[in-house]
């Protein structure tokens, strides 16, 4: 999962990025002003945006307006210093999905971001299930037929994204966008390496194949019998 933090306070942005990448395992990009934030958010590479309201150049609420006007549906969590009802209602009406008042609790922020991403992918629970494959986003672990899978962080991230998008084809580019931040050199063959490793760990020991390759399009996670 890929999260964008738009926050002009460098220190706060650093802390948020560190907390999210370290404890939740999401990939994080940081924008220090409104314009940069809007350009990044419009790329569509993000699963959630954490947005500060008081930003230089382009204010958070204007960014939100522009984002929603462009048809972007990325869930947005707003960080605000104002807690009064009117401004909260105004924010939600403008297209924000959630808000947290400063000073917030880091744990709560991460839980809300996770919930937002889950909901936006159509999942109600923190554990994703496909046949006998189980992925728990809270403990960041996966198991197949009751056997715990030993996954590297990158393998887990890949599986988490594929599981959250189960039933639809995910291209290599989409995977790259959602698994790496923008400063990373992107090589699409890295994805092939992770997919083959995941296949080895998930499909090799079981009777049913879950990871499918759609030639020329990408990858698909679903149960065989539906094919």
């Amino acid at each position, binding site marked *: 999962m890929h999260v964008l933090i738009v926050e002009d*306070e460098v220190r706060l942005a650093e802390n948020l990025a560190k907390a999210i990448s370290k404890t939740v395992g999401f990939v994080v990009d940081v924008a220090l002003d409104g314009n940069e934030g809007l350009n990044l958010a419009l790329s569509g590479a993000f699963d959630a945006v954490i947005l500060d309201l008081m930003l230089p150049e382009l204010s958070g609420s204007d960014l939100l307006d522009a984002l929603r006007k462009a048809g972007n549906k990325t869930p947005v969590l707003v960080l605000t210093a104002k807690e009064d009802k009117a401004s909260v209602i105004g924010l939600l009406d403008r297209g924000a999905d959630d808000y947290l008042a400063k000073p917030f609790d*880091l744990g709560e922020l991460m839980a809300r971001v996770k919930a937002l991403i889950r909901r936006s992918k159509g999942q109600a629970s923190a554990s994703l299930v496909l046949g006998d494959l189980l992925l728990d986003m809270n403990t960041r672990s996966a198991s197949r037929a009751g056997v715990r899978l030993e996954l590297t962080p990158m393998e887990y991230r890949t599986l988490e994204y594929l599981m959250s998008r189960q039933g639809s084809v995910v291209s290599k580019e989409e995977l790259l966008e959602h698994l790496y931040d923008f400063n990373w050199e992107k090589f699409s063959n890295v994805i092939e390496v992770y997919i083959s490793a995941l296949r080895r760990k998930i499909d090799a020991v079981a009777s049913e194949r879950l990871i499918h390759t759609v030639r020329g399009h990408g990858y698909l996670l679903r149960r065989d019998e539906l094919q």
Partner: protein
Amino acid sequence: MIRSIRGRVVAMVLAAQLLACAGAVGFAILYTQRALWSSFNSELRERMIRVLALVDEVENKPGEVTFDSSQLKIQDGDLFYVEDAHGHPLAGSPSWIGAGMRTRSTPSSDWTFQAGSTVYRAKSFINMPIMDQENRKIPPLRVDIYYAMPANRTQQQIGNAVRIAAGVGLLSLALSVCSTWWAVARGMRPLTRFAHQADLIEPDGALPAEPSQPIRSAELLPLDRAIRQLAARVQAAFRREREFLSDAAHELKTAVAIQKSTLQLLEQGKASEAEYRAGVARALEDTARTERLVADMLFLSSIEHTQRAQRGEDAAPATNLTGSLLLALDRLAPMAEMRSVSVVCQPASALCVTASESELSRLWTTLIENAIQHSAPGSTILIEVSASSASDCRVRIVDSGSGISPEDLPHVFERFYRSDRSRSRLTGGFGLGLSIAKAIVEKTHGSIEIQSIPQAGTSVEVHLPGSAGDCHGSNGPARPAQQP
């Protein structure tokens, strides 16, 4: 003590009316009295002439006079008495005339007396020549005539006239008091309505939502204008305070959010001792930043408060301008050295300004620090000090740094305004420095002005009231004027 305008107006009108009324009534009474007495007197004289006409000479005795009583017609109640020149009575009775009156030698006199309940008015003709003397050889024959007429009726008439005049006067007075009372109440109605409208103004200066009735009284227009201006000023002040509060809340909450997130980050997961140490160091850095923010806000608030409180009151202590400038330069020398910026100060002879030394050096520190931060390495900052007139000290700080964009320039003195946010974040600024500088300058009744060309440099000019000469009591340290 509360005085009613209505009461005062009515009292004034009443006093004026009373005077006018008394004058009119007095004049009317006087005139009536005169007119009545004059007609009474002419009637009296006419009757005396008629009596005089009855006196005739005795044909055979020259010098003798006689009275023809057969033709005498005396009105009821009249009294008369006629005597000849020798004092022999001819007709009537002298009993009613006081002795004093008869011995008088004046040809004609009037007097009033009372007999019983009747008041008489009497007149005497002394030595009156009789009317139809035929014998012209002897000197004219003369008689004395005394006549009295009851004056009760005339007195009564006069009394009635006085009563009527006074009554009419009092009635008109009462009428005018009533009408004035009513007119003033009616005249005050727009004022009452206006007061009611003014009552509807919110404590924050907001005018009532529904449009108020337009003021139609010319007298109330200035008041209306004044109240509207006052409301607008109150509103503007409220808006400024609200904005400041909202900005301050944002800054403070952000500062706390940073601290909290730094600590919570440390709490999560397992960290090595080195990581903990680094985390604690970061938390301390964040705390120092919060501390600076709070200190800046409180300083600004205290300066702005004293500015309002001690306006025109006891003067601030006198401070050596050059001394405070050198103190600031001394403090900033390491920073300038670190950024390879040289600061050249050209101080004038001793100048004395009325401001506290700590505030002045804070002012210079802020301005010079800004200049250093926006200067490229290797460039020079020039500080000129001069006395532009007898009571005006001028300090110019000129840098050839990055300058301020024209869009930002009008806002640089606003609280929490940052022209380059990401950069001032790195330098730890909150956008309060220039606000504080301006507050200090305004507290000393001076002025501050910034001119800037992007990429060419900025020049800050500060004017402070002061005078040439040494200050007693406060002296800045004597240091070399040249800083690296």
